[in-house]
């Protein structure tokens, strides 16, 4: 193998300029792949971590995934007459036996659970009205399932207990209403209940929809506001291992019957967009590497064409078809490897260059720079793909070289 490497090195070095162009092509492909992946993954990772940080990992809702079957349909499943237009039975919304379910969930290893009642309300301050979602919480339990305490810029979550009808709202919402800490505002629910509520805390998550349209009150207070005494319409769960969310959600739903959504299911749209984004990114950068691979194909083909006599003599000396094939395959892989190494260096430089770019406007992340993911696995993936592409590109000319008949070549040269 050492001999083949030396021969390959000699042949590549002889065509230094062509080799450099090919290597540089691969390097550019690898570098762009790494830089674009850093940008995309940086944003996606930030976004997902925000979702995981802000939203519960699992939410149990007071609804069923499929509407309950009608009694008539149950009685005559194979009936000849179809029943349509039957109004669903009226029932009080809310999770049944929420206390028992909560106790069962809290007994699970690595699971924190909190009861919640969410409902719409109109917040009114002076002439300004803003429609918001009020989340009724148990502060102690809720602190275990969300990062609301971490996101609070003014006040503490426990202040909800210390103040009658306390309310915590997003900074952006406070700005829209023109209120500050300690101000009293009116909250009107769809059921017509009006409460005077005192702003005891402000938060900022970085997610505009939450910061502008959400408020927190005590569970009991929201039950009064929504006119739904003792009702809980969500149980929110936080897991020690976030990757367990989906299977656990399925398990809980199967056990309780209530619709149970993991964070992945709740954000399926975004995650699907990310999958498409990644597919586009990998396609584009893959195309760059494909072009680079054509460069390698070109140089190996040229070398094979120019080295016909040398191939013949190597075969007459006792090199096998496999040796000859390896000799040119090695050249492709060496070019790919060199390109990958150079591309990794270039990619790292590009990432650091991007890290210096300032937008001059503060982004929701609290920074005015790109969010970049520096992941060694991306370097490995890009390099692996480049070497693989280079190897595949070299296979065809290498096979052609290995099949050359030395007798024909020697005759032609004589």
């Amino acid at each position: 193998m050492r001999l083949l490497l030396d021969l390959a090195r000699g042949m590549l070095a002889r065509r230094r300029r062509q080799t450099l162009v090919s290597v540089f092509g691969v390097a550019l492909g690898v570098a762009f792949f790494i830089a674009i992946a850093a940008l995309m993954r940086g944003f996606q990772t930030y976004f997902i971590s925000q979702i995981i940080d802000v939203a519960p990992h699992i939410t149990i809702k007071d609804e069923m995934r499929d509407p309950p079957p009608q009694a008539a349909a149950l009685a005559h499943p194979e009936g000849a007459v179809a029943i349509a237009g039957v109004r669903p039975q009226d029932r009080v919304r809310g999770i049944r036996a929420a206390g028992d379910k909560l106790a069962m969930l809290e007994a699970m290893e690595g699971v924190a659970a909190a009861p919640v009642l969410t409902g719409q309300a109109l917040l009114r301050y002076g002439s300004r009205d803003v429609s918001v979602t009020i989340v009724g919480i148990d502060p102690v339990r809720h602190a275990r399932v969300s990062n609301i305490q971490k996101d609070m810029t003014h006040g503490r979550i426990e202040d909800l207990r210390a103040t009658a009808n306390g309310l915590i709202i997003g900074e952006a919402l406070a700005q829209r209403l023109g209120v500050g800490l300690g101000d009293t505002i009116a909250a009107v629910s769809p059921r017509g209940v009006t409460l005077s509520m005192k702003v005891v805390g402000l938060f900022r998550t970085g997610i505009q929809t939450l910061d502008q349209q959400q408020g927190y009150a005590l569970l009991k207070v929201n039950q009064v506001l929504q006119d739904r005494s003792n009702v809980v319409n969500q149980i929110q769960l936080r897991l020690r291992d976030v990757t367990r969310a989906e299977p656990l959600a399925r398990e809980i739903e199967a056990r309780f019957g209530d619709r149970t959504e993991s964070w992945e299911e709740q954000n399926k749209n975004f995650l699907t967009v990310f999958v498409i984004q990644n597919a586009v990114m990998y396609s584009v950068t893959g195309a760059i590497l494909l072009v680079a691979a054509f460069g390698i194909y070109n140089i190996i083909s040229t070398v094979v064409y120019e080295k016909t006599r040398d191939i013949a003599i190597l075969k007459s000396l006792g090199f096998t078809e496999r040796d000859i094939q390896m000799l040119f395959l090695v050249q492709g892989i060496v070019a790919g490897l060199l390109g990958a190494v150079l591309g990794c260096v270039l990619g790292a430089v590009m990432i650091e260059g991007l890290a210096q770019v300032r937008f001059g406007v503060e982004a929701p992340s609290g920074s005015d720079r790109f969010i970049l993911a520096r992941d060694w696995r991306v370097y490995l993936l890009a390099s692996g793909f480049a070497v693989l592409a280079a190897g595949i590109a070299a296979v065809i000319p290498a096979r052609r070289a290995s099949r050359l008949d030395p007798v024909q070549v020697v005759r032609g040269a004589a």
Partner: protein
Amino acid sequence: MSDGPADPPLLAAERVTRTLPEGVTLVADISLRFARGEFVAITGPSGSGKSSLLYLLGLLDRPTEGRILLEGRDTAELDAEELAALRLARLGFVFQFHFLLPEFSSLDNVLIPIRRLGRLDAAAARAQAMRLLGALGLDAAATKLPEQLSGGMRQRVAIARALANDPALILADEPTGNLDTKNAAAVFDIFERLVREEGRTVIVVTHDPDLARRCSRRVHLVDGRVVSDGPASG
């Protein structure tokens, strides 16, 4: 050094015919035996099948009929890899064109078959290559690239490469075709020495009657058939 009566010949061709797929017959019904220590010239007019016969004897090509035996072993039974291994270990080729790899020095060119065979460690391989180059008066050319050498020197490097793995049989196809008279004579001097002093068998294709006369035996071909086989001086 020649074979005893019971020993198989170093190389034998038995009723060998080579016909191309297009139907052209290159050599027909040739039977020859080559003993150890023979210096054989294959002569004949252009297109008589000299080189074709040499490639068959050198296991670069396969006969369509008949068989080639190397040291008593029927080579028709061997696959391409086994033939390559035999060429590497037992045969040495010298062509009209030197076919040295232009990227590598004379020393490296000679080292290629030694390293491919892999019997010697790096230091021993280098010593062997240097000894061969020295024996052919090429000590000073060891580090030079082929393009820095004269035609005669290149051909001598090619001979050193053919000798790299100490082969029993050297096959040379018009090795002096690109050389002037002086260099051609020098190449034949080397071949004579290899036969006389080292007991190797050298089979050389040439159309130069003067050089052919320096061999111990001459096989003359016409239209792919052997028309005479006897002492070269005759």
